[in-house]
């Protein structure tokens, strides 16, 4: 099939994060954090001093790295780089927008969920349910 995206089968891939400090700390506590030989982390802590440029770079780096399967990104952070998130269309790594502690989660902003909702509602209307 032309233009088909190859799905790599890997036995060990990482979860990376771009989120606020609390969320990152929580997940690090669970043990997703990784630091490689060059002291590169698989997470980015976003605070008030983090620039959009930094977030963009981190997002680009995480989505191009081979060893990352899932990129979790706080929704308010995703909103800052919405254009990047929306234009991203590869299946792997998967982009997950997660709620953060001090920003309420808005399903309307989620690029995937909005599509899902859209499809789901048309389907429900078609089948006469909901």
């Amino acid at each position: 099939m032309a233009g088909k995206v190859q799905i790599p089968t890997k036995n060990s891939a990482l979860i990376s994060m771009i989120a606020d400090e609390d969320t990152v700390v929580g997940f690090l506590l669970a043990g997703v954090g990784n630091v490689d030989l060059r002291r590169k982390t698989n997470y980015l802590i976003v605070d008030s001093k983090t620039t959009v440029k930094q977030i963009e770079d981190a997002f680009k780096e995480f989505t191009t790295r081979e060893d990352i399967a899932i990129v979790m990104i706080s929704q308010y952070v995703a909103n800052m780089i919405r254009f990047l998130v929306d234009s991203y269309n590869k299946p792997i790594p998967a982009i997950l927008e997660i709620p953060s502690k001090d920003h309420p989660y808005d399903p309307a902003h989620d690029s995937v969920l909005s599509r899902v909702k859209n499809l789901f509602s048309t389907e429900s209307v078609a089948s006469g349910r909901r």
Partner: protein
Amino acid sequence: MNCILHNLYDNKDCLGAKLSLNLGIKMGCSLSFISDPYSKLFNRLCDYWQNFHWLWIGSFWRVEQSLQDRCPFGISVNSLFRSIPSVHRRISGRSVLLRQQILKKMSGQSQRLNVVPTVTMLGAMKARLVGATRGHALLKKKSDALTVQFRQILKKIVTAKESMGDVMKTSAFSLTEAKYVAGDNIKHIVLENVQTAAIKIRSRQENIAGVKLPKFEHYSDGETKNDLTGLARGGQQIQLCRGAYVKAIEVLVELASLQTSFLTLDEAIKTTNRRVNALENVVKPRIENTISYIKGELDELEREDFFRLKKIQGYKRREIEKQRANAKLFAEEQLAEKISLQKGVSISSAHNLLSAAAEKDEDIIF
């Protein structure tokens, strides 16, 4: 958006109306459908013509004149259809000529393949048609299978996203608890202790109707150094918090694999549908047209052959008659010569004798 549907004559017009409606919505322009040029609606339309960018005409062969007479915007029917090429198929077969024109204009390529009309080619085309039909059926099945899977995934995604909110809330709360008990500085300890990931992702493929979908699984690999975090105080809370986050990761990984499957399937369904439609609307009609063209040409050849044979037959018959007449003439000549020799008269008088004998009476025998 002005959409007016009025006076639909029959099903085909209905289809056209629907299609043009869709089209209008897509193009974000206003559009109207009329099929009776003498209706009040049409009059009103003509009055407010500037509101309508498209005038969709159902029974255009009648409308054309009145359009040109009365509509100040003066779209001719041809130009109308040229601007809506994808609609041409839905136009009822009322105006064959117009349709053919549109077909020709549509893509600049004729609707049949460029082949030599021979019996061999006919066989090949028929084989291709069979192949196309089978392929179409198979692809349709594939598309259906994918759609079923797709809908299941849709439902799962919606529930997973909802549960994700709850799980994240509990985990955030447990972190707050841990912070309260162990002090705010545990985050520094945690950040310091990061070395290699204890929770990793294993991805494998799942095959659905030839489409490979990724599935993620998480697994623990070794121990974290965080086991000793909070040894001084709040250790239990921290372990609880850790458990909560591991649970959150479970949900998130599940969600991620669903989401990835969703995107992949979406793409696959689009491609499959495109192929199904291409086969159904382009390839198959084209092959069918080619077959009918070849059949027509072969019939034509046969008729030509038949005609030629008839012609040759007639020619031969005439030729034989001519020869027979010549032979007869020759025989007469010889006879006359013989008589002239026998009786001692000239050849011309012998001729006269013979012809006089032939004319006078058949009963007279020499």
